């Protein structure tokens, strides 16, 4: 075995840095999934009756569906009856006071670099912190409310803003959309809600940090973000989970809506526990994310840095309904060890003169598999649709795989759809060049990978771009020689 290969094998054994657990008194629903489970969740959240009805409808629909298996990955069947669907710390703040948050929970977030004390927070970023099934606090709510922005947990929104919820929740991703969306609609426990009113440029970044802690509990969050006419909001989501040797299920639904000239920028840094070196444990991440450019000249942009999860099944999409709307998808997906990711996007052109742009970068190391799956669809009446797609794969070592599944369906002759794809390896000559300048191999890989992802990382808000860069290096630690 050459030295290069040796280092390569060593690297693929990097440790997950967020794998600690928190010891806190929890209230956990009994394992299993029945209508009673859903009633239990709904009651815990003190939801209005209309909402319970909606959940039950979703559940009945879900029971008739089957788990999709067209993704490019393999896993043992999931038993939906052995896990719990609700877990929450017993000590919860009654109102918006952060002082009442269980100190252990607060410490957990501090350890993750998320301070719930507003004075300590980076100014310019409001955080909703979700611990297992519940939101434990949202910062800067008052400052936001002063300009008319609503930013709160989904549970609070369901109670306090039923009009907006009834109008928009499920309007982009109906519960019947797919198996995991139906499951989520039935059992979701919390998530974030943001509404930016007409003409308001949201004065700070909004963000949600999801922490999965409890054992044998799935996390099903639900997020809804609305930019009203001429409004702008930038939102960031981050997530981590402890190391557990059993797989944990995460099935989220995110809906974005942009009305006339409204704009939503959504960024994700996904770092759920990826499983250990041998592929044991890790989060199953089945996510439905979709944005609707409902109004003319509206914009929705997804940026994701995906480094975690044992399995990722995720296609943040944009429906370009309003004329002159723009949809963007920027993605970096890193897989290492035994991780499997099947991710991409859908751009659905319905309105006229709409543009979409897709830049997808996958990086595979170890024995992992990474796939890009994308669909660009141009409807019959979508005149002058423009799409540009670029998908690049970077292989690190020779035991991993990268796959590309681009689908293009064009029903309008005026469409211009461009697709570019490349596959490359980190070259031995590139690494040697760096080595020759005194840069060690690990540092060289991180430099090359960050360079390769530059275009996507540039889309992230500043503070997070730095974090994401570090994360990329950590995920690939030891993966090359």
């Amino acid at each position, binding site marked *: 075995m050459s030295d290069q290969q040796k280092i390569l094998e060593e690297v693929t054994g990097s440790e997950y840095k967020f794998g600690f657990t928190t010891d806190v008194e929890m209230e956990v629903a009994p394992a299993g999934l029945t209508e009673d489970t859903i009633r239990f969740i709904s009651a815990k959240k003190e939801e209005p009756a209309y909402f319970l009805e909606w959940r039950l409808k979703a559940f009945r629909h879900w029971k008739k569906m089957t788990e999709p298996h067209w993704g490019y990955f393999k896993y043992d069947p999931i038993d939906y009856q052995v896990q719990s669907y609700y877990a929450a710390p017993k000590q919860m703040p009654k109102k918006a006071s952060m002082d009442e948050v269980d100190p252990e929970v607060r410490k957990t977030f501090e350890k993750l670099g998320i301070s719930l004390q507003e004075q300590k927070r980076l100014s310019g970023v409001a955080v909703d912190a979700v611990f297992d099934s519940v939101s434990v606090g949202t910062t800067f709510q008052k400052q936001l409310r002063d300009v008319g922005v609503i930013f709160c947990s989904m549970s609070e929104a369901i109670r306090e803003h039923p009009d907006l919820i009834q109008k928009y929740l499920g309007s982009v991703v109906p519960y019947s959309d797919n198996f995991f969306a139906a499951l989520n609609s039935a059992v979701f426990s919390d998530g974030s809600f943001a509404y930016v009113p007409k003409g308001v440029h949201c004065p700070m970044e909004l963000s949600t940090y999801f922490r999965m802690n409890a054992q044998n509990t799935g996390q099903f969050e639900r997020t809804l973000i609305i930019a009203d006419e001429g409004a702008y909001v930038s939102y960031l989501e981050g997530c981590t989970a402890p190391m557990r040797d059993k797989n944990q299920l995460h099935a989220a639904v995110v809906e974005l809506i942009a009305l006339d000239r409204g704009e939503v920028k959504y960024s994700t840094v996904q770092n759920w526990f990826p499983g250990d070196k041998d592929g044991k444990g890790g989060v199953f991440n089945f996510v439905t994310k979709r944005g609707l450019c409902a109004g003319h000249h509206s914009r929705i942009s997804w940026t994701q840095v995906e480094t975690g999860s044992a399995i990722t099944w995720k296609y943040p999409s944009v429906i370009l309904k309003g004329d002159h709307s723009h949809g963007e998808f920027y993605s970096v997906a890193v897989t290492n060890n035994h991780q499997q990711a099947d991710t991409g996007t859908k751009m659905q052109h319905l309105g006229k003169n709409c543009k979409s742009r897709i830049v997808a970068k996958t990086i595979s190391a170890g024995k992992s598999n990474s796939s890009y799956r994308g669909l660009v669809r141009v409807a019959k009446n979508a005149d002058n649709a423009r799409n540009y797609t670029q998908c690049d794969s970077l292989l690190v070592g020779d035991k991993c795989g990268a796959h590309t599944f681009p689908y293009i369906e064009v029903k309008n002759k005026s469409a211009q759809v461009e697709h570019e794809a490349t596959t490359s390896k980190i070259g031995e000559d590139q690494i*040697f060049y760096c080595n*020759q300048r005194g840069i060690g191999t690990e540092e060289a890989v991180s430099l090359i990978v960050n360079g390769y992802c530059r275009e996507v990382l540039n889309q992230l808000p500043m503070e997070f771009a730095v974090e994401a860069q570090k994360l990329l290096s950590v995920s690939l630690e030891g993966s090359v020689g």
Partner: protein
Amino acid sequence: MSMLIINELHASIEEREILKGISLTVNPGEVHAIMGPNGSGKSTLASVLAGRETYEVTSGSVAFDGKDLLDMAPEERAREGMFLAFQYPVEIPGVSTTNFLKTAVNEKRKAVGLAPLDAVQFMKMMKEKMSLVQIDQTLLSRSLNEGFSGGEKKRNEIFQMAMLEPRLGILDETDSGLDIDALRLVANGVNKLRNKDNAFVVITHYQRLLEYIVPDFVHVMYNGRLVKSGGKELALELEDKGYDWIKEEAHEMA
């Protein structure tokens, strides 16, 4: 003490011997030129010294400042002050020269226990060295070597050398592809970097470069061996007569 002592160095690639017993001593303050026909092993020698793994050293030794060079990883050699200006510099998309050098300079500082330079100190150093080789800021902000012209790549190598201030600089055909003005700039840059503590090994096909960077010794490599050594006038003789007479001499000796 000699800076570099190469003793009977043999190296091969895929069972094929390329370096067939090289011996060379370089002292601080010296400039050595290595000339020789295409394929004779000049770049191979440079790569072996820099620690490229594709070549297998089968016998011989190399001491660099008294340390066993062949025992060190390529990055350690670099941090000890060995610099190779590549004949074919590699592209690194998305990484600017500035960013690349910031990493390199700080890695080198870290190795000797110095704190990393902050942005201000680093920019100051950049400015100084930029004027030395007269390189443009816009070039340094672009992805390293991506889409650079042949001459720009070479000039960028010399700029990197200026930034890293090596003890031993090995220039592999840095002059090829340069126009006359660029050649002069590069040579001037090297001359300004020259001092009594460092040394250069200049690989070239043309005596023209040696008019600017005047060597103390000229060696001729042929078929994996240094078959002839002399002063700077040897370069003129080669320019005049070509390599045939050297080849003949070498065959007679063998």
